[in-house]
């Protein structure tokens, strides 16, 4: 790996050839979808992003916090899952005390968060 212009050996050439060939021979449906995506992007050239989008991130964090609270409550009310509420809380706080807590807070898919929260509420009420 001396520099960016070094000569490829036979293995590299074969691997590169296979990858590029697989990229050039996409099926018609995929090619059509890519072309449609390109046209959509071109139409958006110069278009402004909806300024309200900036508020979705804190809204997503709030929804994630709500989901966590609902899950904890639902699990406490579900018989036979984990009976020790103190252990449950500690366990779940530990589960969320790593980097994934940040990932959850960044979850922009509000529809999924709301669905999961509603499902947890329904299960808690029914169980």
């Amino acid at each position, binding site marked *: 790996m001396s520099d960016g212009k070094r000569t490829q050996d036979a293995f590299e050439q074969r*691997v590169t050839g296979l990858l590029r060939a697989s*990229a050039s021979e996409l099926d018609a449906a995929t090619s059509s979808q890519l072309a449609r995506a390109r046209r959509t992007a071109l139409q958006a050239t110069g278009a402004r992003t909806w300024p309200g989008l900036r508020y979705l991130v804190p809204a997503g964090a709030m929804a994630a916090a709500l989901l966590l609270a609902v899950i904890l409550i639902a699990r406490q009310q579900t018989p036979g899952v984990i009976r020790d509420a103190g252990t449950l809380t500690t366990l779940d706080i530990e589960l969320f005390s790593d980097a994934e807590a940040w990932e959850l807070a960044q979850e922009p898919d509000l529809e999924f968060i709301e669905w999961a929260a509603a499902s*947890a509420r329904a299960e808690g009420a029914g169980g």
Partner: protein
Amino acid sequence: MPDSLALNDFLAGVERRAFRIAQIALGHEQDALDAVQDAMLRLARGYAQRPQQQWRPLFYRILQNRIRDVQRRRRVRRRVMSLLPWATDDVEDAVEQIPDPAPGPVRQLQGAEALGALHEAVRTLPVRQREAFLLRSLEGLDVAGTAQAMGCSEGSVKTHYFRALQSLRSRLGDLIS
């Protein structure tokens, strides 16, 4: 006003390779299409005014970020589903449900086994190695362009690429020669 014709030509030139890069990384065709479309949109909206020679590393930087977003979202979903009281262990994992990576003549002529094994081996490389390898090998970016797209130094690109190649050679050397 950006040059729409030039942007169209650029996107048309990279879209297939970009799709394949996303598909290998994500193991899911629709997720890959979504990632490429999002990268196209973001480039068109935010960077079309930039000089054209900057488009390619910018586009691939956006695409890599989008791929990481999808992977992060999957981890979150798995985590959330595992916390739901009635959840079972059979939560759908798109990464484990890798579709046929390349239907068509290539696989028939050059060997389905070799191509499938190659896609799988690349997909399971460490993230930075996979990014460096695909940008250098499949997209054909030079070291400087790859470094721009990955947001790291040229030295890091060389290291990641070299290690990726070593790993692939040890796994596939007998199959692809």
